[in-house]
């Protein structure tokens, strides 16, 4: 299965992934993506679920575990808006 390309913004990467913005992970669902990232950077899964919004191949979603990830998809995490 072609791995998904996981991308973070520069600011998020600087905070949590030593500045590395892109990763490749094998995933069928967002649960697989978040677990793979949390395995690489323990605690990152919490930050992804709490602090980001998600785009899978450009389609926006709330960051969750249930969304399917197509083979070779681009999974882009962007920051949540601050409301107050």
């Amino acid at each position, binding site marked *: 299965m072609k791995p998904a390309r996981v991308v973070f913004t520069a600011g998020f990467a600087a905070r949590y992934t030593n500045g590395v913005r892109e990763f490749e992970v094998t995933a069928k669902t967002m649960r697989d993506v978040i677990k793979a990232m949390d395995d690489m950077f323990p605690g990152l899964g919490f930050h992804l679920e*709490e602090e980001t919004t998600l785009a899978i191949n*450009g389609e*926006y*979603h*709330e960051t969750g575990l249930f969304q399917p990830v197509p083979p070779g998809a681009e999974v882009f995490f962007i920051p949540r808006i*601050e409301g107050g």
Partner: protein
Amino acid sequence: MNDVSNVSDSVKRFKWVGTRPIRPDGVPKVTGRAQYGADLKLPGMIYGKVLRSPHAHAKILSIDTSAAEKLPGVKAVMTAADLPQQKFDYIGPERVAVNFWHVTRNIMAREKVLYEGHAVAAVAATSNSIAEEACALIKVEYEVLPHVIDVDEAMAEDAPLLFEDMITRGVEPAPTKPSNISKVLTFAMGDVAKGFAESDVVVEHEFKTAAVHQAYIEPHACVAKFEADGQCEIWSSSQGHFQMRALTAQIMGVPLGDLRVTPAEIGGGFGGKTVTYLEPVAATLSKKAGLPVRVMMSREEVFRASGPTSGASMWVKIGVKNDGTIMAADGIYKFQAGAFPGSPVMNGCLCAYAPYDIPNQRAIGYDVVSNRPKAAAYRAPGSPIAAFAVESVLDMCAKKIGMDPLALRHKNACRIGTPTLSGPKHAHAGYIETVEALMKHPAYQVKLGPNQGRGVASGYWFNGGGESSATLQINADGTVLIATGSPDIGGSRASMAIMTAETLGVDYSQVRAIVADTASVGYTHVTGGSRVTFATGTAVVNATKTAIKILCERAALIWGVDPEGVVWEDGHAKPAGSNVGDFKPLSLKELAAKAAATGGPITTSAGVNAGGQAPGFATQFCDVEVDPETGHVKILRFVAAQDVGRAIHPSYVEGQIHGGIVQGIGWALSEEYIYNSKGLLDNPGFLDYRCPVASDLPMLDAVLVEVPNPTHPYGAKGVGEVCICPPMAAIANAIEAATGKRLYDLPMSPPKVLEALSA
């Protein structure tokens, strides 16, 4: 989520989607019987009043409520001491993270007051007049501090600080000194310096926009009844009663399950009623008094204490080739957050250039606090502000290279796969179609007269998805109830009924759509972000499809066949083929009448976390006439093309577009907060804060462009917000076309126009 994968759509062509049936909430509204937030009166109810700061910025040295408590008729007095402390942390559902350390201080001031009108204490008494008298008896000792209102002044090194420990986030290394800059955001792609070097024409300028209020007609109001067993009921006018429940529970430190919130009818929100001001106050007063309490704001309180959208100071630079290709776009966007962090500057940065395919982009955003009410969401929050600057500069570029402004936008229009500054590539089409709709519009060719000009602008908004729920009940006579948790601001009851009727294959008049309270339907996020028709609509269709599955099973039981042998068509269960048997189709009414015998009431629910919402694209042009003697700008014509996906109820879609245009016209020409030298608001009312009225407006031409969204059952896209993005720049561009003078500061009121004309 229910498994509805084996249920196909019941109809091959639309019978109700795209029609304009009468609105289900019309009669109570036109007869004055609809219950808004301030209309509910409970037995024994008393009246709450909030004491507000007379200063723009001051330390609270002491609060003495003893005299107020002794006044006959006073049943409860509260201050911030009655609310629990909150952790300093950004948390929250959906795409909005909230810091409750800030929120609780906005509900009621603690160490300092940060703007005129900031709540300091509250009283509940047996009459409004006693409550007012008691407020006057509360002694608050202040140490008045220097204040700052303007965003550029708030960023100055010597500016008075709202928070002495605020260190700017988003800057490496972190600053060592505090400032009013809460956060800096930088988004970039490509190489803007290279892009400008490769451009034939580069235009840059600074812009300012004023803070403007959402100006909903109905002021904030709620009633709370806190019982001795800890159970609390709240009736309030808001854009999300689940949101009010969550915010009130957190602010009061009580479990969600102890709060039940019922939505009142809502007299406008536009984003401004997604936050809470009164619910925790009313509930706390009710808890202390042991009686139901109603609290409502006056219009002055709405202006002084509830959120407007940010004002901003911006710089934008765009480079183009002579053939119109945009090579680079750069901008600095400084947004007022009001008294607490959290302006929509990130949205502004990410929406600024989103309609266009630009290889080199950068946006730097500043979130800046100042002594004004905390900014709240307002229709596509942040995007219209950035669009005013970007779309003005694009117009200047088009003029310099001698290109039609629509042609410039068409040449650079984003398409599916175009990279965006957010990071993800565009996944949906719809922008170029709005430009083409205006290029073909006959009014775009109409010749204009002296002092008249035409202006063009576009806009982008993300649109929302997220969590929504719906519950469907089939009554014994075959009528259908569809309940959702989405307060109806823009006609959602009608569109939910349409989608139910369409899916079920029954008459629209058979479906009753209601907005249920927090105890009667599943969690549903706010009516905001242009999300309801998409997300709640998806929940409604899923609940309906599950009902169809059950109806087919009931028919199969009656006929003694396998459920797979039954299909649902045109509101009837039918045998799937001749091999199933020769059975007369069963109508919904017939199946409903047999509900008890076939297994009991037919009721279904669906909950979704809907993703894949398509963004909103809009392009508009307007014609104006400028009076050279008075500076008055008259709007002659306004044509707005918007990609709406598929209009479920076109009249409501057109209404959203009309509303966005009108609010945009006000933002462009007349609306602003006027502060005096003491930092106090001088125009907290509709006489002096000038919203457009019908006589200011021409007929508005909404052009519905339909590029269906494949991720919604009927192709719907959010429509309520992007319509407010283009008007300010379209009007500025039209004024420039009419007079040869460009205005860079909003509002473009007659004095500013006259000043520009005389320069």
